[in-house]
């Protein structure tokens, strides 16, 4: 296990330099899916991408190892459940194992995401215009684009430059209509799609006179629910672990 961790660390160090020096080879993995990426960028640039294939192998071994070890320990705990005089104490003992399972669920989520997510880039929406979400019957309409420009005195170079952007969208299909506000850190959800703001124009009131538009990324990611569930479960495990640790500390000070 220690050897595996060392190898993962070493592999990630190489990965850091590869990502830094060849970012264009790895960006497409986010939108074209892992299988297609392996078939194109991955296998045609093996010198630069080999570390990622090694990482997947290492992560698979780590996941199998974690699953077997955790299940072994959990089954021992369940077999000796009667030894615990309180059910709560038994649940507290499960905390690290809950976190391990949560981590595996998160990894599973990422695996599903990279294998089956659909991502549509460069969807340009003009004010008062509509766009159909590719391969669906959903229509997206940009009702209003609101860009805040800096008008303060303190930062001269920022004067008349965009500091915030919000887009009011209406998305509809045959069954439902959703109206929501899209921002840089505020995606809009229209199940099973999520809409993310990537770019916009004009970014400045002066300078190049650009046509107003927003550029959105549309994602359909079935892995999302897994890694969100994993995160919630991990938080729950961490909470139990903290309670366990606090009660242990209290016991020590009392003694």
């Amino acid at each position, binding site marked *: 296990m220690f050897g595996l961790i060392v190898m993962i660390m070493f592999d990630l160090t190489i990965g850091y330099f590869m990502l830094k020096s060849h970012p264009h080879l790895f960006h497409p993995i986010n939108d074209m899916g892992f299988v297609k990426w392996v078939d194109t960028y991955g296998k045609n640039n093996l010198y630069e991408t080999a570390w990622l294939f*090694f990482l997947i192998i290492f992560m698979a071994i780590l996941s199998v190892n974690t699953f077997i070890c955790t299940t072994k320990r959990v089954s021992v705990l369940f077999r000796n459940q009667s030894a615990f005089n309180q059910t709560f104490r038994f649940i507290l003992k499960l905390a690290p194992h809950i976190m391990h399972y949560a981590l595996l669920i998160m990894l599973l989520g990422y695996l599903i995401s990279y294998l089956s997510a659909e991502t549509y880039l460069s969807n340009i929406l003009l004010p008062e215009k509509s766009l159909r979400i590719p391969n669906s019957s959903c229509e997206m309409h940009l009702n209003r684009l609101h860009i805040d420009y800096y008008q303060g005195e303190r930062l001269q170079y920022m004067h008349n430059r965009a500091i915030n952007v919000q887009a009011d969208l209406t998305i509809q299909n045959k069954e439902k209509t959703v109206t929501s506000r899209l921002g840089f850190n505020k995606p809009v959800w229209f199940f099973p799609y999520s809409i993310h703001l990537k770019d916009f124009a004009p970014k400045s009131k002066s300078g190049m006179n650009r046509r107003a538009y927003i550029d959105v990324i549309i994602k359909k990611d079935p892995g999302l629910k897994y890694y969100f569930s994993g995160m919630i479960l991990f938080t729950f495990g961490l909470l139990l672990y903290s309670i366990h640790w606090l009660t242990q500390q209290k016991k020590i000070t009392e003694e």
Partner: protein
Amino acid sequence: MKKIKQWLIGITITLLLFSGCKSESTKSVKEKDVSDFTFMSIGSFSVEQIEDNWTEVRDGAGRTLVLIPHGTKAPDGYEPYQVVHIPVKRIVAYGSFDTAVLKVLGVIEDVLVGVTTKMEDWTIPEVISGMKQGKIAYLGDYNTIDFERLKAQEPEVVLTWDPSIIPMLNEMGVACVITSTPVAMCLTARMRFVSFLAPFFNREKEAKAYFTRVSQSLEQIRKKTLNAGPKPKVMWGDIYEKRVLVEPGNAWVGELVGLAQSDYMFNDVYGRSCIEISLERFLYSGEESDILFTYRTPKTGATSKMALAKINPMLAGVKPLKDGKVYSPLTNYSQSGDKLDEILTDIAAILHPECYPEHRLQYFTELPEKDPKRIM
């Protein structure tokens, strides 16, 4: 068991170490034929030959387009606006580099039907004569495109850097190719961009010939400047009214400066071409630099060092203006992408004039201290 583990770790680490090692110097000279590739990545662009009659390309914005011969049914899974029938017969180009690439491919006179630069601003003879004959139309400035005129020109493809026209082009059934990238093109991507456009016209051979020519010129530069004198410190950018724009270290110019035994002062800056940096950062590099390449042309005010300093007094403090050299691109510079080898040689000759004693600059001009006095 312990020994096996140690061996496994050792083998994996060795494999990982070798996975990152590749000689970049051999990459440029031992290029494969373009037709040898089933997949080729060119910076943010890519070309993938899926079947004989089916090529998939990815443009600078990451949009996928499918290229199929005229008269062939498009494969399933693509929207109509993603389908391009090849060879493309009518094309509109926004950028001058894209237009120059059409010249490289030998199709400029046959396919170019629209541009966004006025006739008087062109230096490419084929474009000027095409505009005079009425075959190539001026479609208006980038932000005031005359879409009626564009429609009348019946283009099959529009090459542009402006994504805001995509919805209109989709409505008109015209394919749009974004030729700008979110991150500046590196030297290899700049040289190979021609291979991205080549499949649109079935001109892979011409693309390969161009790439070989530019690669050889780069190799010449490498050899000539290998033992050159002290490394000059170079900066490429300018100060505007409220913005400071430079070429980042990942851009082809930054890479070329390094290759020609010189120090590029914005090597630590990463991002798109013409990236904005703080004034302080620019002035800091300006204290040490020997050579400044300005974006301004003599037409836009770069007639002398004094004229530049007059436009922006902050610029007067940088070393190249005080006791170094300042170079301004000539009008033909941005429209001579087809002569990239000559441009690269021009830059190398500026950085190391001692290696190019006979060289006469064709795309840049050195700014004098003052404008010559006008005789009234």
